[in-house]
């Protein structure tokens, strides 16, 4: 197998000249240069899928905005990370995420420690720009330790990725299409009946919202456990 040669490339982000390796994504290079791009489905250590689209940026000459987390850098490209157009797209994307499911913070386990909630503060989205759909999904509380509430799921697929890429169990997948999609265990079995799930809890710790949560756990413990997975992902990445 011929290994592609990694080269150093120079380009501009917001008129600032930056350099990165040719195998890096726009998001990675921006982060290295302390240029902030909002993300939601992205988690360091996991593969990037560009599912949430919050990291959309503009590349001069391109017809459409592209997600920074999945776009590889190119020599001499000119990238804009913030503009009126980009901001309004991000707000609309966030509104659509909110409107798809029932994100009622006041009665949610993740209230105060929710990445979706924080994102709305960050992007100054104080109300949804599109009407709520008020969909209803059945909660799966069959597992002895964990609960899956699809009503709070944003389909970021972090759980799917961590289960596959870090734990190696492949117990979780996404079924259905469009707004009816939801994460499932094995062949859409109740969680407790999943033969593949190792009950490691990694999916719960990477969930950005209250869609996956641990039963009978205090908020302080949730934050501590999130650190565990963060450190684990970091050490795995370092060992590779």
């Amino acid at each position, binding site marked *: 197998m011929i290994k592609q040669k990694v080269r150093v490339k120079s380009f501009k982000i917001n008129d600032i000249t930056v350099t990165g390796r040719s195998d890096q994504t726009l998001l990675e290079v921006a982060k290295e240069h302390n240029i902030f791009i909002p993300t939601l489905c992205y988690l360091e250590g996991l593969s990037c899928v560009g599912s949430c689209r919050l990291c959309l940026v503009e590349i001069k000459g391109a017809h459409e905005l592209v997600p920074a987390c999945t776009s590889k850098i190119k020599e001499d490209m000119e990238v804009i990370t913030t503009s009126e157009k980009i901001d309004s797209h991000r707000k609309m994307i966030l509104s659509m995420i909110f409107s798809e499911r029932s994100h009622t913070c*006041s*009665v949610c*386990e993740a209230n105060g420690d929710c990445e979706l909630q924080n994102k709305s503060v960050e992007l100054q989205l104080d109300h949804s720009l599109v009407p709520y759909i008020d969909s*209803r999904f*059945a*909660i*799966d*509380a*069959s597992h002895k330790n964990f*609960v899956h*509430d699809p009503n709070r799921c944003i389909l970021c697929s972090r759980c799917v990725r961590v289960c596959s890429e870090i734990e190696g169990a492949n117990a979780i997948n996404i079924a259905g299409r469009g707004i009816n999609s939801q994460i499932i265990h094995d062949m859409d079995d109740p969680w407790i009946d999943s033969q593949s799930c190792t009950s490691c809890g990694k999916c719960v710790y990477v969930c950005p919202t209250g869609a996956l949560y641990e*039963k*009978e756990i*205090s908020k302080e413990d949730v934050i501590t456990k999130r650190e565990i997975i963060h450190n684990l992902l970091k050490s795995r990445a370092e060992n590779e």
Partner: protein
Amino acid sequence: MKTIIIDPVTRIEGHAKITIDLNEDGSVEDARLHVTQYRGFEKFCEGKIYTDMPALTARTCGICPVSHVISSSKACDTLLSVTPPKAAINIRKIVNLAQIIQSHTLNFYHLSSPDFVYGFDAPKEDRNIFKLMQTHPKMAKDGIELRAFGQKIIESLAGKRIHPTGIIPGGVSNILEIEVKEKLLQEIPRAMKIAQNTLKYFKENLHKFQKEIDSFASFSSLFMAIVGEDGSLEHYDGVLRFIDSEGNVLNEAIDPQNYKEFIGEAVEDDSYLKSPYYKPLGYPQGMYRVGALARLNVATKCGTPLADEELKNFKALGRGKPVQNSFYYHYARIIEIIYGLEKIEQLLRDEDTLSENIVARGKINVSRGVGCSEAPRGTLFHDYQVDSNGIIEKVNLIIATGNNNLAMNAGVKQVAKAFIDPANITDGALNRVEAVIRCFDPCLSCSTHALGIVSSQIELRDHHKKIIKIFARN
């Protein structure tokens, strides 16, 4: 024949209207309270997990969320078959009493005091707390301070003033810090002084309202309340007791889990508020009252010195029988504020309250659980049915105000008959029709667990039910 419509009914929590029907000769034939809001908590809670229920049902109300959190958590305790540790029970009791203090104060000072200070016939633009701030600033400040103290206790022990998060299935989530305990204990004497001044003011002015005392929902009815094992006043845990208007005990100790054997719920076609009744007597003969008046009628003692002393005076009003005049709800509420402050002090001083053992863990062990407690307005029931994973399959809520629905309707009719002169309908008379509702201190948003529609009025209708005049208060 005419119909008078009072809409909105003012200075109450929630939205309602009153219709007064006049017969052919022009006298009052009937009067009814219509609760005009619908919300549907019992339905949308289905499919939720039981651990969400305290936070979810707390949203029924912004005045008495603590009651819902407590009854809900107690229902969940039953589902888990656990008994919360003593510290957790004490903290729950303190928070519950703090809410009774703040809610009773709200009714007395913020909502009802203008009637006492300026009289029921005062110009309507004067009958509000802002006028009270101008003419009686100390009294208004005292009311605000006392209510704030109740809210402060809730915040200190349960996290938030409104919709507190610290009470959870199995116990509570925060221990009582010794500094918090000391700080609250220091403030109790000041709050007690305000409460005693309130009592003094009320008793000194009571003679002015004899006609209202005689006609504000003053009739025979049953009374229901939770009592402690020894028959003493209780708000958190105990057995249900029914007494009749003569004071005879109909049921001494009903386990709240079996409430359905004794309480039926009738649905009226003109109100979103259901009408609970005492099943053995049927509907509508089984009308009963709940709330502060009922609690003091049913209980044999308060169990704290100052409240017990005043309870004697209260009981004397009934001359050996239960006090039937709903105007005395106001009196009963002030006694309960005093009781609440005394009891909170006792519970704070209890060494067990400082324990770090504050939650009992468990899994779903039974499929149905009833949580029952005394809310400021009366007995509150949360009844949940769950599957083996704790997903809610069925919810039944009987809200304190709902228990009083039949009595409130009877009261409106009684006041309308006593004060409404169809030839000359005065604002004072209409205010009295509203004020009888205020005696019961209803929380209509809670009682319908319903969607808010801002509208209430008094409708005047003729004998063909045709609306002749609407008295709107928008």
